[in-house]
């Protein structure tokens, strides 16, 4: 199992509080560490780390988002912790 740290920026139309709650719930369910960056009506940035398969699952879940948010683009930057 590979451990991964990834930085995400979800872009689109957001209710920031709603998206943050949604992402927190998914991260907890998947057992991932999550740290939020800036959140606005247009973008939400966050860092997540855990098993690579579960980070992928987190990306998929958040790309759908809660009912009151529209995710139009996802920018993902995998961080090499060894570097």
């Amino acid at each position, binding site marked *: 199992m590979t451990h991964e740290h990834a930085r995400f920026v979800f872009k689109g139309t957001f209710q920031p509080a709603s998206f943050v709650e949604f992402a927190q719930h998914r991260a907890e369910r998947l*057992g991932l560490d999550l740290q939020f960056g800036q959140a606005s009506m247009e973008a939400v940035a966050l860092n997540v780390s855990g*098993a690579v*398969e579960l980070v992928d699952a987190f990306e998929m879940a958040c790309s759908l988002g809660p009912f009151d948010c529209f995710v139009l683009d996802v920018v993902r930057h995998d961080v090499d912790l060894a570097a």
Partner: protein
Amino acid sequence: MNPKNCWHPLGLSHSIEAGSSAGTRLLDRELVVWRDNSGVAHVWEDRCPHRGMKLSFGFVRGDHIACLYHGWQYNSGGHCQYIPAHPALDVPKTIKVPVYPAHERNGMVWTALSENPPSVPDDDEPVVPLRSLYLGCGVEAAAAALNACRLVPFGSQTPADTTVSRLSDTLFALSCAQDRLLVGIQAISNTRTALHLSIVGSAERYNGAGQSHLNGWALQWRQALETRAANARLDQDVA
């Protein structure tokens, strides 16, 4: 009755064979009752945390149940142990199905919705399973109907005086001549109730002919209830 503070019957023990599962409802919650291959009964929320598929459609393998949809496997504690699409993944403990307590008494599988339910009654009389009946009414109406029922005892053709006692919020006993029936009441919803019936006594006395006789009585009793309810609705419509 405080539904959070009592035990609820979900079905007759004999209707859940080892290695099988069945979906049911309790107070509008969807639950799965499954029995592992060693014979232990489990009561869980009937929903896979992955995509929401009913676990009652899944497969029991040993002491695990696997979701029909993507094969996620859960151990007897409700924790996901294996995801076939990611065989090397160490599945986090957070992927877990809500689990309810399960006990078997008086030929029925019981559960409780509270984390600290009252203790299970010690008495566990030898019983012969009879059948489950499903009624289109709430539990109080079902309890009132039970209180008014007259059993036709085994070996007789006519109803006789019947003593009805409420042993707990969800368990009744009907005593008539030499016969004693236990009736567990399951509140499916506000308008649906299941009754689970077992006969107190030995298999030597009741297996076969005794079960057949009391099964016939139970079906006739439900038929009479439904007829009365239908007539009452008709009277309301006319009025």
